[in-house]
């Protein structure tokens, strides 16, 4: 049996330790994702979702714990090195592609993810250009006719679609989606979500998707993780996930939020009493 696509073991991280701004972003996260799993992560601001994603992608080296991708221990690998195994789409549509380069050029760079970058061949020689156009056509957005347009000229939705294609052009062991539709208008959101599902299904991609959207968390994937204060407090999978309804997930959130409010008012009281 092959190793799980992703394993997190007791991952801890604290920002600004030992200062008044100390913030415990991750407090012992464990996670195992088997190949082909599609997991969603939801949680309020500050719950540690982003830090979790950063620890996996290598933007950040956690204080403690282990990150393993496809059986390889990558906890301290630099971001670019593990990118050979990871495809990423960011929240900001500007982040994932290179504005100055054309669609074709962006795709050509992405086609070499994790590979060698030689100097002997034109990156967009005839055969390769045709191949990339073929892949762009699969998106169904007509981008194959605009291969020489700079990516910076595209709309946010189109740009996320291109980034999605770039992230999966070389099949990643793990696809990381960081609220990749939250900066888009409703139409583009729908389009990008459809594209995401289509790519994940057809390529059988192992996917970890962070989202702010409860309906997305309910409709997509086969497991939902709820994060709260740096921990995974709930994992809804299997039959329960399939039967999950928006109201139920919202109720769970409300419960967590009211627990927070109690804490807040207690803290406020302490502040008033002693300061």
């Amino acid at each position, binding site marked *: 049996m092959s190793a799980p696509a992703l394993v997190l073991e007791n991952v801890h991280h604290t920002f600004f330790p030992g200062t008044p701004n100390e913030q415990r972003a991750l407090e012992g996260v464990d996670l195992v994702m088997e190949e082909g799993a599609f997991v969603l992560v939801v949680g309020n601001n500050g719950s540690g979702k982003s830090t979790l994603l950063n620890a996996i992608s290598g933007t950040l080296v956690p204080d403690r714990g282990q990150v393993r991708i496809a059986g390889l221990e990558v906890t301290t690998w630099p*971001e*670019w090195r593990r*990118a050979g195994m990871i495809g990423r789409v960011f929240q900001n549509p500007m982040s994932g592609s290179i504005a*100055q*380069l054309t669609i074709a050029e962006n795709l*050509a760079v992405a086609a*070499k993810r994790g590979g060698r970058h030689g100097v002997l061949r034109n990156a*967009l020689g005839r055969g390769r250009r045709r191949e990339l156009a073929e892949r762009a056509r699969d998106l169904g957005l007509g981008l194959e006719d605009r291969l020489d347009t700079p990516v910076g000229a595209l709309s946010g939705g189109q740009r996320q679609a291109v980034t999605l294609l*770039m992230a999966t052009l070389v099949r990643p062991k793990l696809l990381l989606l960081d609220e990749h539709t939250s900066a888009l208008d409703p139409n583009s959101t729908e389009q990008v979500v459809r594209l995401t599902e289509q790519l994940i299904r057809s390529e059988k991609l192992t996917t970890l998707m962070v989202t702010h959207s409860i309906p997305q968390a309910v409709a997509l994937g086969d497991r939902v993780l709820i994060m709260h204060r740096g921990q995974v407090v709930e994992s809804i999978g299997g039959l329960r996930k399939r039967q999950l309804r928006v109201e139920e997930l919202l109720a769970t959130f409300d419960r967590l939020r009211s627990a927070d409010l109690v804490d807040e008012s207690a803290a406020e009281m302490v502040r008033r009493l002693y300061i």
Partner: protein
Amino acid sequence: MNLLIGSLSMGLLLSLLTLGVFITFRVMGRLDLTTDGSFGLGAAVAVALIGSGVHPLVATLAAAAAGWLAGATTGLIYVLLGIDTLLGGILVTTGLYTIQLRIMGSGNRSLGGASTLPDIAGHLWQALRLPDPVSLGETTLPASLFSPLLVFTVLVLFSIWVLARFLRTDLGLAMRAAGGNAQAARALGLDTGMMATLGLVLANGLVALAGALFAQYQGFANVSMGAGMIVTGLACLVLGEGFLGRRTLRRQIAGTFTGTIAFRLLVAAALAAGLPDDALKLATAVFVVAALGGPATIARMRRVFVREQVKG
């Protein structure tokens, strides 16, 4: 006429400098102050080697290689120590001052009668049985005025061709990607630090090459001849962009070439019109300020204009 052909020769060889500035400033999105140092370094290496009997072509290539080293130093200071290229370049340029002095043995070194690339071009001119003197309409001019053009044109076009091809290979594209958006580049598996270093190496090689040709054209090298070259390069770059825009890579590369020649013609015209020699650097700096600051100024003026209208 002399002045015109002189400007053309100077513009040609300096377009290598502009090409270097283009790589760092536009492709990699950073200002590299190593430029001043590597220009002087290239001149120093070329003059010292030619002076000690090395073939000028070998000396010129060695000068370019010295530029690579200078660029690599700034790059590694950035990658390994986290000091940005702006400061790193100043540090390397400062250090290079000593190294140039050691290489040349003094602050000023003449080539004397040693054979240079333009001299070789002169022999070539004769071997090809091209006319000497050259007659243009009424005037006749010595061929020695034209032969440098020959060798500079060949060298510059070759460099441009190689660079343009390189920027379209996988590695060249990766370098442009890293310069354009480091976050995306890292997510696509590119070591952005190494890519930045690669850009600095290439750029400073070109700049040092320009320095080497400059020294051979003038017949001497001076330890401070690199001072302010980054500004000259920027001036030529933005002038070229004014002509050809920044829409495609081809236009941008052609722009470095056009801009530099236009800049040298402007300089020649300004000098002929009575601009004193010593005012040149000030004029160049003012030009760069105007060119780079123009768009922001226009936007601000528009704001003022609209405000007046809104008030009625």
